[in-house]
């Protein structure tokens, strides 16, 4: 009887495996703080990230940006890890998702230093200080001015216009289950047509060829004709998207290439907060303070195309020139949103995607 | 007109010549035995006649018709295999009736005719049995009945009695002989046993001589 021979190949293989195991052992987190956010927050290379670097210089606290996916997924992960979170501070819950975040108890209440610079109407949304309003904006349907001009077509002016067959197949929206502008647009239609009428509207939108994608970046940077070179000339985006198109235009231009359908706008407020169970609560609070401070808020307009909540910040001129601020943006009572959001999303999913 | 004509058949496998210019003629009602040791190509010849193997050269004529290019199921050639090849998913009577079913005979008619054939081979009442419960001798008889039930032009038997024990062998040999003569079938039988050949067949040939 002969023992099976171990050959050299398997010994070498074992050595490689052991080395890799040792190398990969344990946690590799070098940053002091992790900022959990959604997929349209830049991870690097923008002035927003430079501001975070300045925070590190000032306080010695390293910040790592962790993209957790779209808003819906980010929240679900936070809910599932409540008390033992993936990061220390979360940026990007908006008013339509806020009640879910509070119900799931993912935040540790903290009233930021500098809160007095934030208007009362925003802080009123978080009476118990669970999170801090960091920016606001309007979610509106944007359209490609040139596309419509070329075809001699008047761009739509109301929600009703969007179901007009003349505009068939020209709109891309986001899935409200996963995307906060997507949810905001759905809420806008509920505001217009009521809790019993919005279904018919969406049925008509579906019949009119509306396209649904999962995230705003996908809709804006891949499907939209102007910003993404895609096939669809209208997209659910922000009232402050046109200024962005002017600022980043190459070659430079002095008029906005995209316009906004004011009737579709829904007011959105975004929040940031300390995650409950963070290992670095003091540092986290410092970061939240920084996020509402002027230094960081200054960069918001040109990077995230939202209005800073800090009233002391001056807006860049392109912003004031080209941003469309509707006189009377739509909104819904947070309590109503809280009560109905899941069933609305379910209904919408069955209606539009089913 | 001969019932079976094998004309100048050549068959080679992997370069080895198995059948070399083989010719054979049989008149209607003839029972011929083909003798030879195992591996001499006797079974191959049977399979060529049945159409299971294509010859490299030569032709097969059945009742004067050249069937060399014809597929097996059109040749009206019956074959009893050495290991019977009964259909295990069919009962005994369904096995016997199989050929009649293929010929389009109606259900009642074919079951009746099959029952008659089962009687002929001495298996009265075996109809409902499953094939796997049969003994060696019983299975052989069912195979025979199945083949003869369609009244083929030529019946081929591949070592039909090889492997059976002495008593069964002798009994079956006599029964086979009387069955074939009674049916008046042209039959080509392959075996290595000269005594068996003498009992069952009218004449014996050696493959090497053909």
């Amino acid at each position, binding site marked *: *009887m*002969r*023992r*099976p021979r171990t050959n050299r190949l398997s010994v070498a293989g074992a050595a490689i*495996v052991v080395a*890799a*195991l040792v190398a*990969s052992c*344990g946690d590799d987190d070098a940053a002091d703080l992790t900022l959990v956010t959604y*997929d*349209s927050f*830049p*991870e*690097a*290379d*923008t002035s927003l990230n430079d501001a975070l670097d300045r925070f590190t210089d000032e306080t010695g606290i390293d910040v790592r940006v*962790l*993209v957790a996916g779209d808003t*819906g*997924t980010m*929240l*679900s*992960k936070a*809910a*599932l*890890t409540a008390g033992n979170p*993936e990061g220390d501070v979360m940026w990007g819950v908006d008013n339509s998702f806020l009640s879910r975040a509070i119900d799931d108890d993912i935040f540790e209440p903290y009233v930021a230093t500098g809160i007095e610079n934030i208007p009362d109407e925003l802080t009123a949304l978080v009476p118990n200080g669970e999170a801090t309003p960091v920016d606001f904006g309007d979610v509106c349907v944007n359209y490609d001015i040139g596309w419509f001009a070329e075809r001699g077509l008047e761009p739509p002016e109301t929600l009703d216009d969007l179901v007009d067959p003349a505009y068939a197949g020209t709109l891309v929206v986001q899935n409200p*289950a*996963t995307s906060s502008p997507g949810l905001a647009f759905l809420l806008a239609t509920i505001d217009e047509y009521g809790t019993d009428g919005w279904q018919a509207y969406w049925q008509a939108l579906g019949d009119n060829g509306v396209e*649904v994608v*999962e995230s705003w*970046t996908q809709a804006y*940077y891949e*499907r939209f004709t102007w910003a*993404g*070179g895609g096939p669809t000339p209208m997209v659910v985006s922000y009232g402050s998207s046109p200024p962005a198109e002017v600022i980043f235009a190459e070659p430079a231009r002095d008029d906005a290439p995209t316009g906004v359908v004011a009737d579709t706008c829904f007011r959105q407020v975004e929040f940031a907060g300390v995650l409950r169970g963070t290992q670095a609560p003091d540092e986290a609070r410092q970061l939240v303070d920084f996020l509402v401070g002027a230094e960081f808020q200054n960069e918001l307009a040109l*990077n995230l195309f939202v209005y800073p909540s800090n009233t002391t910040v001056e807006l860049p001129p392109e912003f004031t020139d080209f941003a469309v601020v509707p006189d009377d943006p739509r909104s819904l009572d947070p309590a109503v949103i809280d009560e109905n959001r899941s069933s609305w*999303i*379910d209904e919408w*999913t*069955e209606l*539009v995607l*089913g | 007109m001969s019932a079976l004509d094998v004309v100048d058949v050549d068959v080679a496998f992997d370069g080895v010549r198995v059948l070399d210019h083989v010719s054979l003629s049989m008149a209607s009602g003839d029972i011929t035995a083909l003798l030879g040791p195992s591996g001499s190509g006797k079974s191959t010849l049977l*399979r060529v006649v049945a159409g*299971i193997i*294509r010859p490299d050269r030569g032709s097969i004529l059945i009742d004067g018709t050249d069937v060399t290019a014809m597929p*097996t*199921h059109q040749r009206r*050639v*019956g074959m009893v*295999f050495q290991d019977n*090849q009964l*259909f295990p*998913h069919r009962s005994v009577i369904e096995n016997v009736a*199989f050929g009649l*079913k*293929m010929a389009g005979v109606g259900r009642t008619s074919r079951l009746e005719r099959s029952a008659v054939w089962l009687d002929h081979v001495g298996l009265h009442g075996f109809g409902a049995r499953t094939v796997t419960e049969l003994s060696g001798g019983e299975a052989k008889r069912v195979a025979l009945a199945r*083949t003869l039930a*369609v009244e*083929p032009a030529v019946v081929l038997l591949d070592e039909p009695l090889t492997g059976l024990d002495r008593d069964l062998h002798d009994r079956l040999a006599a029964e086979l002989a009387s069955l074939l003569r009674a049916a008046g079938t042209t039959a080509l039988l392959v075996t290595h046993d000269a005594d068996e050949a003498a009992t069952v067949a009218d004449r014996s040939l050696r493959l090497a001589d053909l």
Partner: protein
Amino acid sequence: MNRLPRSLVAALAVVPAAALTVFFVWPFATIVSEALTGAAIRETLTRRGTWEIVWFTSWQALLSTVVTIVVGLAPAAVVARFDFPGRGALVGLLTAVFVLPTVVMGAAILAVLPDALDRTVFAIVAAHVVFNLAVVVRLVGALWELLPADMEAAAATLGASRWRVFTEVSLPLIRPALTAAATVVFLFSFTSFGVIRVVGATGTRTIEVEIWRRATQLGDLGGAAVLTMLQLALLGLAVAWSTTLQRRHSRALGLRLRSPRRSPSGRRERRVVAAIIGGTFVVVSAPLAALVIRSFSTPTGWSTSAWTDLGRSEIRPGLRVGVDPWNAIVNSLTTAIWATAFAVSIGALASLAIAAAGQAGRFLDAGLMLPLGTSAVTIGFGMLITFDVPPFDWRASWWLVPVGHALVAVPFVVRTTLGVLRSVDPDLTAAAATLGASPVRAWHETVVPYLWRPLAAAAGLAAAISLGEFGATSFLSRSGGETMPIAIERLLGRTGSILQAQGYALATVLAAVTVVVVALTDRLQSGVRPSGSRDRT
């Protein structure tokens, strides 16, 4: 075999049993308790969408099964009956395709189909068919090989044309294998997750996808749990039905010897065989070829930029797609190494215990097979909702994903090793005993050495499973810790951008790595027979 002391057997069995209980039974119990709230049940079962999803899942699985069987019958027959150049390669190709990760197959189907068919049910069924062709060809082919060619010849002599031979003789006799293959394909297509996520349009949901969506996007854990139980019930019904069907049709056929295969003879036969083999080759390899080709196709024309820019998934300066391909590759490899380590250790201990324990070992054996019967999505979901309370707050632990993978891989390790262990000649151990070795010593000297070769092969299999695992990982992976399949799915969703080309490139990498691992495993396994004295004389 001289009995090993009970304590040793128990010691061997305790780790696998504990692992199974903690990481599978407990999470499963959590799902059940989560699902048993009246509100969740009521809400889920009364929602119209639930039944639409059940209906869709069922009919697409049924359609996939029927098409796979129909497409696979001809190749199965040809592979069983004939010898032809390239036969080995074809069988190998089919098997290689079968072990590919689901997201890779999804990517390949997306790549090969014209855009109009992308994301349609046609694409989903096509992916299932290509994937499962191997199951039909191997299972049905194996039984067909046992069908004596002479039986089909006998039917021909009785006047049956080629078609009637098939319907009257071959088909009834291969029916047990057909039922078995159909069951496997149905189960696979019913619980399909990776394929649906990659190939399906945004709203396409099977039960598995809906479980995932409810749990990870909507935060509706109760609803997800109810759906899990519903799916298990439906699967149980399907398996029960198939088992009764198989029992009814199985019969002692007495088929023992394999019929020798032959080369196709005659011009017509050669042409038909060539057409079938050629067609099968094309159906199976075209998607893979398309995958590689599409990785070079960018919105601006043909280029290698998807490959060279693989690490850079920028949409706009600073904006990434939220997943880093290189990071994903590293994560996948480290996870696979750990998962393999876990699976092999647990599997080895379990195999030894089962081999030594005799009758009682069957419980452990059956228990370890349970994770295979429930889907990976169920496993991942269970672990997600169970390990959230200290001192069992393991959700953020780096080792949870590898453990999840190991759970799915252990049954394969056990099957591979147990077979070899059991085939060791008991006389060897007896001989050692007569030479004075105690039962433990004898066993250690004569049985344990034969563990290593199959374990090495099983390690390869476990690695391949881990690399391609998508279902459980979709629940458990932390942000920043995504594996290759997750990255591929994200990238492939960006239709019409360079990111999609990067998705194809990454899928090609994953396919290549999987094939290499499996090929190495195969080479190891071909020398697995233990050479006892019986073989040597």
